[in-house]
């Protein structure tokens, strides 16, 4: 309980800090006043139309990515299972790129998150098929490498074939993720999918707890493994698909956050779900503040920062898993 309150306060504090972070040098009190007043002055437009959706998206995306990571890891009982690393984010980005480049998203805005979701479902199914119910590390990572490589190559191909001279430069955005200049349009596009996905994943708690005792024990306790798997696939795909469709592939959130919080919740998968959602929100909010404060003029990509934190941890986890296997 203390952990929950602490983390909610942390997310709230980072949310406000995110609102106050930006290129324009304006005082904190003045900014927040303009946000509440909404009187059509330039400052209130900046607060309401630029910074508020950005902070909301950071919190939403972080929460669903943390949640997805915790759920995947609980189901596969493997701490390396993370949507970005095993190729789900990459596949979702490919879906989003295809929706944009075919012009489908212009005619029908929901095509963007739907296409990302569709490709994400394919990737999750492929991963579960390849890695098997126990999620052996080696197959998981190899399958992830293959799916990520294929998705990355097809994204590059689609963007290089585009008649738009700026499309090729978008590769960096889709691979690394950024929240720069997002608007409420993107919040409303992503929110329904994230809500449904998060609800599906949150309902997995009891099943994941039972699964720690093994599949047979879980089934004996009345857990429907087929239903659990279906909810996991759809929930992860909806969460990661929606997040990637509006912000690009942001990796490592689902790896770092559950890893840090696992000891704090006594390694119970059900508790790790909500804790990782809060932790993910805090992490992406903090990273998005950092990209604006470190290099304000350069639109530093979120994924760069995430990889700097996440990749060393990933290597550490691989090292540990290797020792356990030996």
């Amino acid at each position: 309980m203390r952990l929950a309150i602490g983390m909610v306060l942390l997310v709230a504090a980072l949310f406000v800090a995110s609102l106050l972070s930006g290129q324009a040098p304006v005082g904190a009190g003045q900014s927040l006043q303009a946000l509440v007043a909404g009187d059509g002055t330039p400052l209130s437009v900046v607060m309401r139309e630029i910074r508020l959706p950005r902070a909301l998206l950071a919190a939403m995306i972080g929460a669903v990515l943390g949640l997805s990571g915790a759920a995947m890891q609980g189901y596969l009982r493997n701490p390396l299972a993370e949507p970005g690393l095993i190729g789900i984010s990459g596949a979702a980005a490919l879906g989003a790129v295809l929706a944009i480049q075919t012009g489908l998203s212009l005619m029908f805005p929901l095509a963007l998150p739907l296409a990302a979701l569709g490709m994400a479902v394919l990737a999750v199914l492929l991963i579960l098929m390849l890695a098997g119910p126990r999620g052996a590390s080696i197959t998981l990572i190899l399958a992830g490498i293959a799916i990520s490589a294929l998705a990355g190559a097809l994204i590059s191909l689609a963007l290089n074939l585009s008649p738009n001279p700026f499309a090729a430069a978008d590769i960096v955005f889709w691979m690394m993720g950024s929240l720069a200049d997002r608007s409420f349009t993107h919040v409303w596009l992503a929110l329904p999918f994230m809500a449904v996905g998060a609800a599906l994943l949150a309902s997995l708690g009891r099943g994941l707890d039972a699964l720690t005792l093994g599949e047979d024990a879980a089934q004996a306790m009345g857990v429907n493994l087929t239903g659990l798997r279906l909810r996991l696939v759809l929930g992860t795909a909806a969460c990661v698909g929606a997040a990637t469709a509006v912000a690009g592939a942001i990796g490592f959130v689902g790896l770092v956050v559950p890893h840090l919080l696992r000891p704090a919740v006594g390694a119970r998968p059900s508790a790790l779900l909500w804790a990782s959602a809060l932790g993910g929100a805090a992490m992406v909010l903090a990273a998005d503040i950092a990209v604006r404060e470190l290099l304000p003029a350069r639109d530093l990509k979120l994924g760069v920062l995430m990889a700097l934190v996440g990749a060393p941890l990933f290597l550490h986890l691989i090292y540990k898993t290797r020792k356990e296997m030996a």
Partner: protein
Amino acid sequence: MRGCVRPSKVIALIAALVLTGAAALAETAPKRVVSVNLCTDQLALMLAAPGQIVSLSHLSQDPDSSSMAEAAQAYPTNGSGAEEVYLLKPDLVLAGSFTAASTIQMLRDLGIRVEQFAPARSLEDVPDRIAQMGAALGREPQARALIRRFRADLARLSISPAHRPRAALYYVNSYTVGDRTLAGDILRAAGFDNVATEVGFARGGTLALEQLILLAPDVIIRGRDYPGQSRAEEVLAHPALHALHQTRVAGTLTDRDWICGTPMVLSAVEKLRDLRLSLEAGE
């Protein structure tokens, strides 16, 4: 030309120049001219004698990029590569100063004369480029006539108004330009102040969307729309641009007339001046 008088006048003038000057083509003038750059394409089209141009770049026929796409239809195009250009047996190649250096070096090594043209950074550069093209093609009298006409038209168009609205030029990827660019100079000549200079941009740079909003310009002039979709362009459709009540968001004014330092920039100045007049009228 969508209800705009100036370009057609310019074209009529050019046609007249081309016809009257045909006989005067000197012996020393180049006879097989190949242009590999969008801007030299257009200057050559305005000044060359009939039969003098052998080939233009592909872009010359693209109506989104070239102000003289129609006139360019009459000529074969080239992909600007050294091999292709050499096989056309030119005695003069017209290139931009940012045309691939390897291509230009290759052509010079093969013994072909290459004349390079720097991009115009202001309206004052336009007469210089016309004169350079006239000299390169051996068409100095035609160039002088075109320059006289350009100066007269520019003087007539750029009468500084009492009230200068504050404008921002806003392009893909939040790019903006200051006064020391051709686009910035067009803006100045049309009677606007450029907000980019208020925050210290003389040339170009990235102006964050929130900085642009806080500057609250009277008008935001967005860059042209490119075919296809890209995330980099989405900033031009951000709802915050339309949330400012005092700011007018003008459509894609910065089109093909803004790209090259040719007399066509006058049509850009004229369209912008019309925009300023409509702002004054309170539309």
